[in-house]
């Protein structure tokens, strides 16, 4: 492993963007990053709130209309190489909010996330479990390591 990939694997800065989900995933992810039980820092994952510092963007929620532009802006602000993890059922397919009454689309929801920004890893669950978020972060790593 080159020094470049080695250093990338040893310090992963994660940024969270909540795009209007029900808060369940958000709390679970903050929990997994912060709480002593799941302590993501032992897997070299650090929490940051600055897109310029981040490598991995974790997006939860179905992306409501007001959140579409901020999400794009934040994604563009992250310097390459970057990876995106969509966490939770809403981020993956819009959840219960997107597909209402058969196939009538909701006008509130601009998501799912991969319509707006490219997604590299998907974490299922309603709400996501902290263990799954950590494994999702691991799944997104190869993209970071192999990038130039």
């Amino acid at each position: 492993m080159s020094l470049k990939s080695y250093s990338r694997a040893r310090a992963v800065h994660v940024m969270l963007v909540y795009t209007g989900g029900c808060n369940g995933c958000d709390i679970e992810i903050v929990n997994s990053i912060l709480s002593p039980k799941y302590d993501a820092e032992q897997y070299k994952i650090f929490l940051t709130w600055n897109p310029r510092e981040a490598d991995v963007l974790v997006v939860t929620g179905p992306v409501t209309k007001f959140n579409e532009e901020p999400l794009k802006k934040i994604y563009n602000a992250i310097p390459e190489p970057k990876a995106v993890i969509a966490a939770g059922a809403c981020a993956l397919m819009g959840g219960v909010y997107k597909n209402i009454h058969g196939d009538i689309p909701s006008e509130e929801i601009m998501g799912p996330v991969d319509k707006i920004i490219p997604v590299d890893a998907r974490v299922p669950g309603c709400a996501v479990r902290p263990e799954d978020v950590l494994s999702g972060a691991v799944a997104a790593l190869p993209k970071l390591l192999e990038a130039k």
Partner: protein
Amino acid sequence: MEASTIIYSTAAVIGTIIVAFIISIWLPGIERKFVQARIQQRIGPPISSPGIMAPLKFFFKETINPNSPLPRLYNALPLGGIIIVFFILLFLIPEMYFLGALTSIIAIVGLLKIEEVIYVFMGSFSRSIMSLSMPFPDIIKGAAHPDIKRSFLEDLSSLRAFRLIAFGSFPLYIALFVPVAMAGSIFLGDIVLYQQLNGPVLFSVAGILGAIVFFIGYMILLNEYPFAILKTKADVIEGPYMEYAAKYRSYTYLTRGFLMFTLSALFSVLFLGIPPNILSWGILVNILVAILFPILSAIMSAFSPIFTFKQFYPVAAGVSILGVLAILATFV
């Protein structure tokens, strides 16, 4: 001067700076892993991650143009910061004491002041998307005060940096003058010589008070947690550093570790009389102080909330008074 002396001195200076650099990149990791994580009852990151691997990683990232009115100047500022810290360390090494006025307390105070002024510039040049430029329809019909001047979060932290210059760094500067008052000279060479003859400044009443004041000043200058008004997560997020990405961010990371070492070296020169020099065993004391200081400050920051001005003014004023007492005590 003979040629061999010059070679020796040059080797000592370069060797000391390399050792200082190697030590300083481990300091953030020690702080994070062995102090904060242990206090918070978790495992914490590997010791190399925050100090070495993170700057390396940022170094390999894509260089982007920061959102700033003067992007090039903004990106040059952390380099300026690291050069200033480098010069402070350089003037602390005994081989450089022939430089005279540059190796005096006044020069060091001046350089530290420039380091602080850099924060003001950083803050006013940064225009992060995390506050005002985030697209959100908030000025709409019925919005309160629609025609008011709007400022970025970084303007706030620039304002705070300005205030830190005004009063926040008093403790450190007062503490620097305790050994000066004892030795009766502003030159580092004389202060070191005085301590070699009369024992370290630290082992006197004035010295102990001065050391406490110096420690608080150290935390304020490094923006450690209770005094981190420049980069409070709860309002200004990261303050002046917001727009740094890629290698410029790695410079800011390195500057921080290097500043930690340099301030500790300053302490051991002024209060213990042991200048950093690779050619003497005294460097071990320097390294010990450099490890001890971050550990102490990490313990303190792990157990304290962020201060607002309501707490900051009294603490800074109280510690400054303590520093003045320490200086008075040197005359008794």
